[in-house]
């Protein structure tokens, strides 16, 4: 009870505070991540592109106005205004503090300034140029001033050519002509007017040349490009930052979620601890039992798996024996055929043996297949145990004989049968016989005995050998998977546990007879077998 009251404040206060903090940080990050409007950049980029186009248009319009006798500046004004609006718009855009923007802005405002000057000067120049031929005719030279008149004509001519060229020589010639004419005495009013326009053309033209060349040299496009580059860099950074904010947000959300789950789990667990404290001993025992059962279950599953492996390993051996029988028999049969006198009966017997032996192989293979299935759904049939023994012996008799180990078989007259899987039972018997063989092979006076006892409701099949298991730990672990006493590489340690599994599946039992003077394995099987519904 008091544990409960202790736990509550401890859990609630810090988690609540953490939760609030995280929520605030999340909100902040959400705001930050959204603050970066990335669409703005695409907009600025396209605005900059438009600006470059406008700028090129403006420049070409200026050049055209420079050539025309009656230029109209409305289009120039429009282009210049669009440029100014665009620059203002870009200024409002992202990265408004960059040095690139300052350069960009100053270069464009210089351009607008130059264009204003250009418009003024170009108009004045054009007027004087347009007027000059008339001004020349209005200039009245006295008869004695013929050379002056010629010079004035030459000046007019050169001024027109100069207007469309950039010749420095021409300019000097023009200036010296103007100078000469201006210094001439007693000029008429008309001539003075002519000279005024000539002077104005010379100075305005030079001025316009300077304006236009500065205008053309202005690196507007370059600054638009470098501004764009700066924006791109900034854009990338912002995108990264924005991504970082989003990731941070995501992470925080995760942390928040995890923290919530953690808090819940802790609350849960504390409640469970409390509950467990109140649990009865019985519940604990039950739990423990369950754990053990689970363990066994797991063990059986793994032993089944492993026994498959062992069977696969042993299969070569098990199939090899009948194969040897088959090949020996067929050799004998061939010899027989080669003889003059053909013993029909004997040949038939040999052929039959081949057939039976191959049958056996087929059975082993089928058994292998069946074993991989759960024992309970294997088709159980009536199994003649004396036949099982006979079949098994056929597999290992040779081996015992070869090593001079006597193999005793004690089987009752009447045939005992059980319900089950013949091959699986043979498997178990073979396994026990192999174990016995391995156990006694190196010891003198060794023997092995197989005995079948029919006790009515159950049968007992025992496999005994001359050896003796003395080590109590070995006896204890005998049926545990992977336990083996055989030398490394000879056995997997699964044989006995698998065998036990098989016999258990047949509702029987496989055990070691501790009372027997020698090693004695006892298989007990019910004669009525498994009741299947």
């Amino acid at each position, binding site marked *: 009870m008091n544990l409960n009251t202790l736990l509550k404040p401890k859990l609630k206060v810090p988690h609540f505070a953490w939760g609030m903090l995280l929520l605030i940080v999340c909100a902040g990050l959400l705001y930050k991540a959204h603050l970066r409007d990335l669409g703005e950049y695409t907009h600025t980029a396209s605005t900059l592109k438009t600006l470059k186009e406008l700028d090129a248009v403006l420049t070409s319009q200026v050049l055209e106005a420079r050539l025309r006798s009656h230029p109209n500046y409305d289009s120039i004004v429009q282009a210049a205004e669009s440029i100014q609006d665009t620059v203002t718009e870009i200024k409002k855009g992202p990265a408004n503090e960059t040095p690139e923007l300052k350069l960009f802005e100053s270069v464009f405002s210089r351009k607008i300034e130059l264009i204003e000057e250009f418009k003024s000067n170009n108009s004045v120049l054009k007027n004087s140029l347009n007027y000059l031929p008339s001004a020349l005719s209005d200039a009245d030279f006295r008869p004695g001033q013929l050379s002056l008149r010629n010079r004035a004509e030459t000046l007019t001519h050169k001024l027109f*050519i100069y207007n469309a060229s950039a010749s420095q020589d021409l300019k000097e010639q023009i200036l010296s002509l103007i100078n000469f004419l201006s210094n001439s005495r007693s000029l008429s009013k008309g001539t003075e*007017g002519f000279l005024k326009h000539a002077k104005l053309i010379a100075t305005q033209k030079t001025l316009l040349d300077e304006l236009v060349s500065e205008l053309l040299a202005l690196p507007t496009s370059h600054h638009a490009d470098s501004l764009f580059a700066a924006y791109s860099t900034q854009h990338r950074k912002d995108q990264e930052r924005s991504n970082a904010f989003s990731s941070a947000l995501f992470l925080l959300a995760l942390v928040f979620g995890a923290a919530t789950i953690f808090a819940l789990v802790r609350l849960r667990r504390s409640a469970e601890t409390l509950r467990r404290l109140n649990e009865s001993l019985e519940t604990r025992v039950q739990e423990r039992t369950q754990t053990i059962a689970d363990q066994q279950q797991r063990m059986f599953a793994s032993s089944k798996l492993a026994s498959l492996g062992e069977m696969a390993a042993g299969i070569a051996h098990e199939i090899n024996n009948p194969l040897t029988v088959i090949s020996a028999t067929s050799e004998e049969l061939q010899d027989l055929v080669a003889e003059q006198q053909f013993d029909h009966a004997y040949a038939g017997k040999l052929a039959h043996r081949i057939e039976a032996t191959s049958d056996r192989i087929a059975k082993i293979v089928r058994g292998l297949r069946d074993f991989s299935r759960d024992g309970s759904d294997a088709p159980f049939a009536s199994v003649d145990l004396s036949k099982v023994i006979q079949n098994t012996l056929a597999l290992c008799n040779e081996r015992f004989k070869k090593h001079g180990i006597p193999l005793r078989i004690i089987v009752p007259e009447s045939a005992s049968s059980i319900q089950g899987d013949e091959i699986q039972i043979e498997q178990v018997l073979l396994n026990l016989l192999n174990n016995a063989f391995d156990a006694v092979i190196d010891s003198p006076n060794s023997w092995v005995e197989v005995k079948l006892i029919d006790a009515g409701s159950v049968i007992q099949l025992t496999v005994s050998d001359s050896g003796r298991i003395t080590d109590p730990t070995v006896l204890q672990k005998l049926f545990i998977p992977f336990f083996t006493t055989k030398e490394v590489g000879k056995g997997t340690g699964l044989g006995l546990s698998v065998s036990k599994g098989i016999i258990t599946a047949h509702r029987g039992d496989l055990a070691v007879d501790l009372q027997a003077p020698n090693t004695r394995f006892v298989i007990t099987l019910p004669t009525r077998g498994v009741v299947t519904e």
Partner: protein
Amino acid sequence: MRLAMILVAHLFLSPATGITSEPIEPIVIPTDLNPTKVSLGRRLFNDPILSANNSISCASCHDFKRGGADGKSLAIGIHGRKNELNTPSVFNSALNFKQFWDGRAESLEEQLDGPLHGENEMASTWVQIIQKLQQDPAYLAEFKKVYSSQPNENNIRNAIVTFERSLATPDSKFDRFLRGETHALDGQEREGYRRFKDYGCIACHQGRNIGGNMFQVFGVMGNIFSDRKKLTRGDLGRFNVTQKESDKHRFKVPSLRNVALTAPYFHDGSASTIEDAVKIMGKYQLGRDLSAKDIELISRFLRSLTGKTPEGNAR
């Protein structure tokens, strides 16, 4: 020899297209304006409530019966205070590339603060104006209707400027001529136009507004200020904005549309008739002495530039 030079002149100076398109375009009526804003703006433009003592309105100086100007040489504002500049017309002012004689305002929106706050004009403040308008139920209702809000600096500005944009004066005789009605102008007017172009007035007074698209020094071909009364600050023109020596006496070339209605002329109202103005222009802007005939013909042409006066009075 003369012929050769004229040929040379043509080679370099004739329009690149070779098509003799006119350098002036006719006025078009703006169609993209919200009529409720225009009428609210018209009301404000005519209302003395915008001035400090409710004595004068924009229309006091920009009188629609006087071509959108005031007929005075120098504007007279609140308390009869004299300004140092002549009142230009508000007609077609939206077509000007900049506002004011010295072009210090880039837009009409920017321009508006000038007369509203000018000590010699309306001498008002936004706070006063907004307060007064908010106390007027009729204005409250109209602003609510047009802008769905109370009067504030933004929507007041927007209403007045929208109205100003509507002040186009289409269908002058000259515009009809430009549109192909050759006989909308009589022979003398057409000859006046030809001389206007030939003399080079068109080099400065050009574009749709026949002016208003560049700055020019007043007195390119001779100092008009040297032999005159003492200079005022207004005489310095664009210099007041840029502080550049070359911008002294430089002004926005004024529009010549409706020029017949807006005497007296020039930034200081120093020319009382069109003829005077044309004569001065010839001398100081072109370096030419125009004959009486030239002046007469050109002035006739200038009088053909009067278009339809827009609807002016709200009440």
